[in-house]
């Protein structure tokens, strides 16, 4: 049997997107996963497709990725639960209104539609929020998808173009244009490590650490809220280095369910529910949306974001191992940036020029002069 052009290790949203993009470009692809497609961090993800502007590089990648999701929207089956909910970045007080203005300017400069809402307009947009909030930035084109099925669908797209999926096939090691599995050594023209939270175990030296988060989902309350709601302080939580943090992040699912996040902590792969942290997380949400107190919560779960020290993913060639490429370290933005990541990666594999500068995401940046890790 001939070797495939590319082996993708990991069938999460990022690996699935890479497989779809590579097979669309005409490469023969094999995807390996220790479990099943979309069953790892992807299964625990919220699925918020969102433009984030913490850095120029983050903005470029999220904006590109959101555009790619929007282009796919008409093809996504109902099981992917794609919906253009928009995002409301909520300003609790007048100080945060200043952040709304700044954020609006940054988005507009990129040609991204935004709308500044004052207190009254915010209440019109989401009447269930508490009174007294100062306003919000509305980003109308942000979306929500159901991540495990989106990963599955991307993989099916790849399979339709000849890609081969091997689930329940744990990869023990990645070497020079080969991977070691229980069933033997598999060779390929190139290998992509897209193993999410497990990426660092397969490529020693990769700066990816699991960052645990909790989510709580409620029973169905159609119409309770319409936008994904995020507090403006979210970035402080997402990008702060503190050991434990929470932020208000509420998502209306297409089912009418409310999905509530978010928490962040570095505790390895301990999958137990941290009850006090979950209480802080819900408590934070109650400060913005006290009406959620009566909603019936039916499940809690945790997931492990593959976090990097500078909050940017690792996409590109891993120069110390021939033929090894990385698509990992997407922290809490893997669903959003999966499509942009896949585009950049396949561009690089084929020597094509990318529409955004890929260098900020290079996994080698840690070792560059001035690399700050």
């Amino acid at each position: 049997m001939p070797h495939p052009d590319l082996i993708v290790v990991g069938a999460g949203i990022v690996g699935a997107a890479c497989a779809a993009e590579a097979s669309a470009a005409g490469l023969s692809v094999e995807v390996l996963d220790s479990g099943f497609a979309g069953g790892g961090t992807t299964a625990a993800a919220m699925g918020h497709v969102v433009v984030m502007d913490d850095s120029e590089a983050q903005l470029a990648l999220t904006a590109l990725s959101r555009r790619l999701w929007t282009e796919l929207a008409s093809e996504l089956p109902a099981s992917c639960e794609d919906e253009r909910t928009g995002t409301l970045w909520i300003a609790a007080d007048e100080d945060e209104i200043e952040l709304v203005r700044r954020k609006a300017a940054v988005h507009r400069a990129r040609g991204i539609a935004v709308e500044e809402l004052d207190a009254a307009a915010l209440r019109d947009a989401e009447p269930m929020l508490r009174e007294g909030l100062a306003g919000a930035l509305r980003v109308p084109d942000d979306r929500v998808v159901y991540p495990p099925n989106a990963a599955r669908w991307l993989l099916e797209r790849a399979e339709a173009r000849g890609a081969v999926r091997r689930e329940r096939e744990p990869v023990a090691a990645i070497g020079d244009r080969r991977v070691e599995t229980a069933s033997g050594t598999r060779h390929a023209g190139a290998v992509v490590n897209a193993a999410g939270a497990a990426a660092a175990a397969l490529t020693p030296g990769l700066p990816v650490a699991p960052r645990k988060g909790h989510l709580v989902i409620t029973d169905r309350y159609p119409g309770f809220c319409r936008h994904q709601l995020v507090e403006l302080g979210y970035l402080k939580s997402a990008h702060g280095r503190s050991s434990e943090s929470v932020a208000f992040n509420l998502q209306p699912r297409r089912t009418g369910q409310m999905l509530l996040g978010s928490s962040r902590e570095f505790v390895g792969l301990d999958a137990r529910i941290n009850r006090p942290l979950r209480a802080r997380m819900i408590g934070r949400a109650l400060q913005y949306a006290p009406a959620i107190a009566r909603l019936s919560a039916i499940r809690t779960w945790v997931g492990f974001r593959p976090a990097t020290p500078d909050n940017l993913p690792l996409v590109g060639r891993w120069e110390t191992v021939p033929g090894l490429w990385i698509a990992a370290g997407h922290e809490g933005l893997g669903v959003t940036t999966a499509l942009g990541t896949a585009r950049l990666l396949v561009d690089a594999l084929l020597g094509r020029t990318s529409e955004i500068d890929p260098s900020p995401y290079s996994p080698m940046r840690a070792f560059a002069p001035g690399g700050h890790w």
Partner: protein
Amino acid sequence: MTSGRVRLRLNGRSTEAEAGVTVAAALANAGMAGCRISASGEVRAPLCAMGVCWECRVTVDGEPHVRACMTVVREGMEVETLAAPRASRRTPDDAVGNVEPISCDVAVVGGGPAGVAAACRAAESGARVVLLDEGPAPGGQIYRRRSGEAAPEAFASWLDRLNRSGASVVRGAAVYDAFASTAPPGGWRLSARADERVLALAAARVVLATGARERFLPFPGWTLPGVMGAAGAQALWKSGARLAGRVAVVAGTGPLLLAAAASLAKAGARLELVAEQARVRSLVLLAARLGASSPARLVEAAGYRASFIETPYLPGWWVAEARGRGTLEAVVLTDGERVVEVPCDLAAVGYGLVPNLELPVLLGCETRRGAAVVTGDQASSVPGIFCAGETCGVAGVEVAMAEGEIAGAAAAQAWRAGDTNFRRLVRVRDAGRRLALAMDRAFALRPELRGAASGDAIVCRCEDASFPAVARCAGAREAKLATRAGMGPCQGRVCGPALEFLFGWDSDTVRPPVQPATLGALAAADDAVAANGRKTSEESA
């Protein structure tokens, strides 16, 4: 109290119901077949009638997702059925509720026979005991009755004993979380919701007497209003539904079918037939075994049978399909070769009972073949946690009471194996457990039942995941993520045992909350945990 009547509004129409009945019973008595609209738009009605399946959700006084089967009617109550679930109209200020801290030596979860016996014995041994019961009154499913109605004679003496024992009983308490306390002196924490209250219980030791639920197997049409569990139909009747004149078929498996059929006959339903999936040969062997070792059980079975002696009892037959436009009109039965259609408006179909293991599993107790593993004094594999009754495997009321007493004594640290009285309890338990194994063998599910689920039957009723969609997946977790099977408010309690039988899949992991709880309750009770931890560290500093 039960003789009175209350006025309530059903979908805006003023109506009367007998006091003490559940909302589910009141709806049935008012001729309203449906409770809620499912994810795919079907009308749904009670299935289990004992708080497990969440099919009977209605809006009560503006609060959506209230289980009609667990809610007793009140004067002035407003009930809406088939409504889109709007978030509560009530102001959120009263939502979180204050956490009520309670501490005790022994917490007993479950107010059925095992839990009541455990609470009695532990309290009589001098322990401070709190019994948390989700039902409106202790008695569990077997002694279920209308709220305020006197308990049956067999159980009334236990209730007297419970009252005298000094154990305190919290009714309507749904335990949604349990965990080891991190603060000295250790012990266990239980979080429960009782109406608007959030209880944070601290206990040195815990007895889990969580009982069992009915096992359901999917077949085409089983989501039609009118198709219920066998125990479910019995429970609905016990909680006040009038079944006189209903045309009923009882089907499934196990000794419970006889009891359910006897109840329906007593309720005045026209019982068309009882279909038992087990083969005649299995039943004959079981009867011989009972005749030799437990003739009282044979007499009991014969007594049930006598109450519906005109009705055919067909071993080796099962339900292949339920038919009807909007509501049940007929069931199709088969023995694998022949097929008959029987017109009816009530099908009571249950495939035995399965232990409720969510709390034992959450606490880390070892389980084997779907039951908690215990030692001779009912101790689980986790020190300080005891299990009794159906939690340790379905074996009936006598075993449950014996195990409850043993567990209660052990949890109160008053268990002395050699004591004469205790020796009697051990004998009852051990004989009952042996008999239960024989029953399990006799009523083992036939593989042909898997065929009944195929076609496009819905497997997960919460999320309306169909058999073909689920069958494409390679395991329970994959099915859950791809089709949502098991992701609804029943948390897989209905489809989990079915998937286990159909595909051999183990259920996914158990995580808190193990019952739906409001976000306010989660925030408040978890906050109390955090506060407790802080307080302790300050004290020790």
